[in-house]
C-alpha cells in the first residue's frame, strides 16, 4: 500500500470522518495543538535563548533545562497526538502538499539536533553550564533548534494556505 493510499484510508476512516463532520472536534483539536506548541516549542525557546546567553544568563543551564524537560516533552506529545488527528482529518489532501513534507523534514532535523545535543553535551552540563561563555557547539545547537522549530511552525501554519481546494 502506498503512502497516498494509506492517507486516503485514514481520511475515509470513521475517526477521520468524525473529525471533519463534528462542529467542535476540529477547532478543539487545533486549540490543543496550539497549547501543546506553547509548552513544547515555546518553553524550548527559553532553553535555546539560555544556550545563546540571551535569557537568564546568570542561572546555570541545568537549572533551566532540567526542570523544564518533562513539560517540554509532555508538550511535544500533546502536539504530536493532536497533529496526527489533524492530519487524519485531511490526510488525503495534506499528503500531497510539498509544504507538509518540508514540515516533517524540519521536525526530523530538529529531533536529530536535540538527540545530538543530549548525546554530546547532556552528561557534562554541570561543567560547561556554569561557564560565562558557553561552548560554540552548544550555541550552535541552540541556534539550530531555534531556526528549525521556527521553520516547523511556519510550514505548519502555511498548510491551509497552500492547500489545493
Amino acid at each position, binding site marked *: 500500500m502506498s503512502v497516498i493510499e494509506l492517507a486516503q484510508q485514514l481520511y475515509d476512516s470513521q475517526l477521520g470522518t468524525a473529525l471533519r463532520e463534528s462542529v467542535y472536534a476540529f477547532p478543539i483539536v487545533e486549540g490543543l495543538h496550539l497549547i501543546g506548541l506553547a509548552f513544547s516549542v*515555546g518553553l524550548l525557546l527559553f532553553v535555546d535563548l539560555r544556550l545563546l546567553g540571551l535569557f537568564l544568563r546568570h542561572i546555570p543551564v541545568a537549572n533551566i533545562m532540567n*526542570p523544564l524537560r518533562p513539560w517540554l516533552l509532555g508538550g511535544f506529545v500533546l502536539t504530536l497526538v493532536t497533529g496526527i488527528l489533524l492530519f487524519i482529518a485531511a490526510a488525503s489532501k495534506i499528503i500531497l502538499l510539498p509544504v507538509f513534507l518540508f514540515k516533517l523534514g524540519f521536525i526530523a532535523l530538529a529531533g536529530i539536533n536535540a538527540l545530538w545535543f543530549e548525546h554530546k553535551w547532556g552528561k557534562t552540563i554541570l561543567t560547561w553550564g556554569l561557564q560565562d561563555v558557553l561552548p560554540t557547539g552548544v550555541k550552535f545547537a541552540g541556534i539550530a533548534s531555534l531556526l528549525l522549530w521556527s521553520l516547523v511552525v511556519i510550514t505548519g501554519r502555511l498548510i491551509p494556505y497552500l492547500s489545493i481546494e
Partner: protein
Amino acid sequence: MSTLELFKALQTSSFGRFIGSLDHLVHAGIQLLHITGMLLLLSSIVLLSLRLLGLGLRQTPIAEIANATSRFIWVGLGLLAFSGFLMLAPSATNYYANDFFWDKLILLALALIVHVSLFRKITRSESTSAITARFSAVLSLALWFGVAFAGRFIGFF
C-alpha cells in the same frame, strides 16, 4: 456611532479594502505574525505559572523570571494586536457577527486586567503565600488559554 457602524466603516475604508486586496500569502504572513505573538505570550505565561505552581525552575527567583519574560510578553502582545487588527480590518463585519470573536475580546480584557494587577503583584514579591501564587497562576493560564482557544474557534463559525 454604534460598534457595528464602526466595524462597517473600517471594512469599507480604503485601508480595509487595501488589506483585503492583498495576496493570500500576505494574509498567511499576517497569520504567522499572530501565531508568533501568541507563542511568545503563552510560553512566557506557562513558564511563570510553572514557577508559581512550584512545578519548575524552583531555584530561580520569581522576580527574575518575571523580569526576563516581561519583554517577550509585551512584544508578543504588540505582534498580536498589530496582526489582529490587520486580520480584522478587511472583514470586520464577519468578526462582528461571530460570537467567538466577542468571547475572545472579553477573555482578553480579563486576562490583561489580571496580568497587570494580581499577576504583576505576585511575580514581583517573594513573600506571597503559596496559595495566592497558585491561584494567580491557574487563573492567568485559564484566561490566556481561553483567549487562544476562542481565537482558534473564530475561523470555524
